[in-house]
């Protein structure tokens, strides 16, 4: 869990960094998603990244399978439960609910893939009218205009709400997962543990927050 988790955490860094390019499309000097689309195109066309992408899916798959197995395994260990649960007195609810949070994130991911990944890889990035959404670069090359796709997708309030909820799930999942992963990998020195804990809290709040701001930004028209 820890190893796959940490890989996914690393992926989040890349993902959030790249997506943050959308905010280059704000206000007077908006580039209308040029920077974002360029970056996305770069990622999509590099062989190394494509291989890593396969790796990413493998890790997600492993993480999910491991998670399911862990939950199933641990569920069998106490056939008769307590009538008065210990509850939040000794642990955080999200620490005890990693399975549930993970499931929510997975559901969100499926939606997310359908929204963006499937079109950009397979079915093509098309507008509502079925016409391809493209953007022409300075050298004349035409690339997918994912920026436009996001703009269209995030006009739907429900999608925005689901995305925000997905990000909240991710935040709580990370809040436990980040520290837990390092514990599982054997970090026990109090100095490093403190550091990791601080980074973990920061990461768990900032990254999902930034992600959540993207659909909101589109919905509220902060980027265009």
């Amino acid at each position: 869990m820890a190893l796959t988790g940490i890989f996914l955490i690393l992926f989040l860094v890349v993902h959030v960094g790249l997506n943050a390019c959308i905010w280059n499309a704000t206000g007077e000097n908006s580039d209308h998603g040029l920077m974002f689309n360029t970056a996305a195109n770069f990622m999509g066309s590099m062989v190394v990244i494509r291989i890593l992408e396969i790796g990413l899916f493998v890790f997600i798959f492993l993480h999910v399978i491991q998670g399911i197995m862990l939950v199933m395994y641990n569920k069998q260990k106490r056939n008769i439960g307590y009538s008065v649960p210990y509850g939040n007195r000794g642990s955080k609810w999200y620490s005890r609910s990693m399975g549930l949070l993970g499931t929510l994130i997975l559901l969100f991911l499926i939606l997310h893939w359908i929204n963006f990944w499937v079109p950009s890889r397979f079915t093509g990035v098309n507008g509502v009218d079925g016409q391809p959404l493209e953007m022409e670069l300075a050298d004349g090359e035409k690339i997918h205009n994912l920026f436009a796709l996001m703009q269209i997708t995030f006009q739907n309030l429900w999608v925005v709400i689901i995305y925000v909820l997905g990000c909240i799930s991710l935040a709580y999942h990370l809040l436990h997962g980040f520290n837990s992963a390092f514990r599982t990998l054997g970090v026990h020195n109090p100095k490093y543990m403190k550091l990791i804990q601080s980074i973990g809290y920061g990461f768990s709040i900032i990254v999902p927050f930034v992600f959540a701001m993207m659909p909101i930004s589109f919905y509220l028209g902060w980027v265009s």
Partner: protein
Amino acid sequence: MEHYTMNLKLKIWRQANRDAKGAFRNYEVSGISSEMSFLEMIDVLNEKLIENGDDPVAFDHDCREGICGMCSMYINGRPHGPWEGTTTCQLHMRAFHDGDTIVIEPWRANSFPVIKDLVVDRSAFDRIIQAGGYISVNTGNAVDGNAIPIPKDKADASFAAAACIGCGACVAACKNSSAMLFLSAKVTHLALLPQGIPEHDSRVKDMVERMDKEGFGACSNTTACESVCPKEIKMTNIAYLNKEYLLATLNNK
């Protein structure tokens, strides 16, 4: 400290034996002094039950001073009751008030089957120790006690881990019924000492394997164990165990 007396309602898990189906039963006790220990309150109940021809509540206890690790009640949703860093036998009735209802359950984990009422079988812990929780030194093999200096901080940290009393509260509190805190306390205690180094790879692997075989769950670092440990054994021991385990696995020949 003002003393007071109280009347209490008790809801206690009763189970005739390992295979019987258990159920909660309600009792009432009156005139309980705030100066009593929790187990003395149960003594009062039991005396009353015996007088009435009922079967007294079976519970494990021995030293009644918080060190033998035998007492094991899950009181109002928390192993060893409401006080931190305290075993059930050291819990006193000052923690409760007149009219309170107290729910008492046994440790719940498949690896700790109920023997009767609140008494559970914790022999799995002994078997985990048998798998490697020792230093292989026969009587008479020892060199002088001061031959190997041990830095004070290491000795102190080792002692802090060795303070575990093997009561099983960690397993009882854990949503996964994991015995990682117990196991890690022993691994850390021995691995921090130079004497424990020669066997540290095999020790950690064998003990973890045994723990899994005994049917304890896998640790997911929720920290519930740490919060109930009457000897305040820390989660860092679990991280230490993980490090030992990883290195031992990597060193696998």
